[in-house]
């Protein structure tokens, strides 16, 4: 049974239909990419999973239907969604942001337990703990929001365009951490990306979303060889 499954999900923003029947799965322990151009509906798909957008269709997580769940309850089930724009609390300190990552599991205890582990991946965060999150650089902010998501030991990590606006070295570092987490801790990841190269490099399987539907799907190798994908998303 897959950890996450979407079946025929349709979502709309008012009168505009953004998703026209999207189906995908993420197995436990997998890294899966969701690729596509701007406006294809990638962000909407993640929001459909976390319950932040009106939708029809099935969304099951760990065998339970979460189609009618509000974002707060989806989070409680162990889905960590790092949204577009990182969703940090700019006015709060780095430390407070991290603490909020533990909120979903009971802040005090969880944070005490998990902080050392997370700081192990991002050691520089400790030195900056009292800095206002909004004053960090773009790359640092992305790292912080990833760290925050990891504090709650989620079952599924969802990343929305983590590479957006970041320098290539930072992007490599970030995906390196994601790959490591998947390998070492078996963390399941669903990554939404425009940067198909780096995403396919980090994932086992991928889907390509075009105008609200899945156009292509398969293993990363298959997609890398797929002519249409190569031309449109990989640039060669």
């Amino acid at each position, binding site marked *: 049974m897959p950890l996450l499954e979407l079946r025929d999900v349709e979502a709309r923003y008012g009168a505009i239909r953004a998703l026209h029947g999207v189906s995908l799965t993420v197995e436990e322990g997998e890294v899966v990419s969701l690729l596509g151009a701007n406006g294809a509906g990638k962000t909407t798909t993640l929001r459909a999973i*976390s319950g*932040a957008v009106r939708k029809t269709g099935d969304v099951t997580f760990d065998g339970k239907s979460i189609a009618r769940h*509000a*974002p*707060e309850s989806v*989070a*409680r089930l162990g889905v*960590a*969604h790092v*949204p577009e724009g990182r*969703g*940090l*609390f*700019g*006015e*709060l300190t780095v430390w*407070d942001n991290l*603490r*909020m*990552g533990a*909120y*979903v599991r009971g*802040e*005090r205890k969880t944070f005490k337990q998990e902080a050392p582990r997370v700081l192990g991946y991002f050691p520089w965060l400790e030195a900056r703990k009292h800095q206002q999150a909004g004053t960090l650089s773009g790359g640092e902010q992305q790292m912080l929001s990833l760290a*925050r998501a990891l504090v*709650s030991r989620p079952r599924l990590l969802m990343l929305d365009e983590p590479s957006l606006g970041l320098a290539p070295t930072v992007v490599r570092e970030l995906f390196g951490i994601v790959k490591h987490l998947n390998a070492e801790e078996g963390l399941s990841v669903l990554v939404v990306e425009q940067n198909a190269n780096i995403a396919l490099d980090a994932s086992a399987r991928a889907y390509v979303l075009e105008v609200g539907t899945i156009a292509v799907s398969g293993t990363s190798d298959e997609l890398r060889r797929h002519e249409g994908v190569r031309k449109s998303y990989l640039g060669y």
Partner: protein
Amino acid sequence: MAAFLQQVVSGLASGAIFASLALALVLIYRATDVINFSQGEMATFTTYIAWSLMDNGLSYWPAFLLTLGIAFCGGVALERTVIRPFENKPEITIVIVTIGILIALNAATGWIWGAEVKSFDSPFPNTTHEIGGVTISTVDVGTTVVCLLTVIALWAFFRFTTLGLAMRSAAVNPAASRLLGVRVGRMLAIGWGFAAVLGAVAGMMAAPTVFLDPGMMLVVLIYAFAAAVLGGIDSPVGAVVGGLLLGVIVNLLGAYVDFVGSELRLPSALAILLLALIIRPQGLFGHPTVRRV
């Protein structure tokens, strides 16, 4: 000099009351993005409840604390029933809603308790102390202490508790908080509850001086609104500093500027305030609004 300090001290006392109500306004503004024009009436209503409790035999401090509890519940209930349906509606709609609450509460207060002015005792004795040639009234000191203690307690709550942290996140970025498991609706309701508590404190501290009548807090609301905007409408620190500052300024204006007299105290204070805002639109501690296109 002594006279000057005296004015400053009594100004601080009224300023503390403004600060409490201003903080309530800022709390709600940060959470719900709206100026709660009925904050004053909520304070008046809860102060009347305190009066009723004491009228029925309860002594001051138990009545005070019980009123705070009732105020909290009232604030939560108000947010859940009246404000919640208007969550994403335009600003002008919510302004009218808070005005509707203002009108309804004002009328209800008069209806339930009658419009005659009542007296409300201060818990502090009507004594004065001489410190360095300055006469300080115990009531003034007591008022300032109670208001500031409430403010500090609230600050501590927000700073040191998990719930406080969650409320702060919900105010800063509600969408992201949801993704972290925060029940934002609940946070808003609690915010309104705390604002109601602040209002109740302000009302009970003001009542001995301004006497209890349904329109009692209307003027205080204006000062509190002014203080909140002066301090920066999204800054809790600004609200407190703004309130204290405004209290002192108004007192000094009334005492030292002949032109002002008693009628023009409020207008002059407001004029100074608006001048300050024109120079620095975001207020003393506010963040300049970045307009996103």
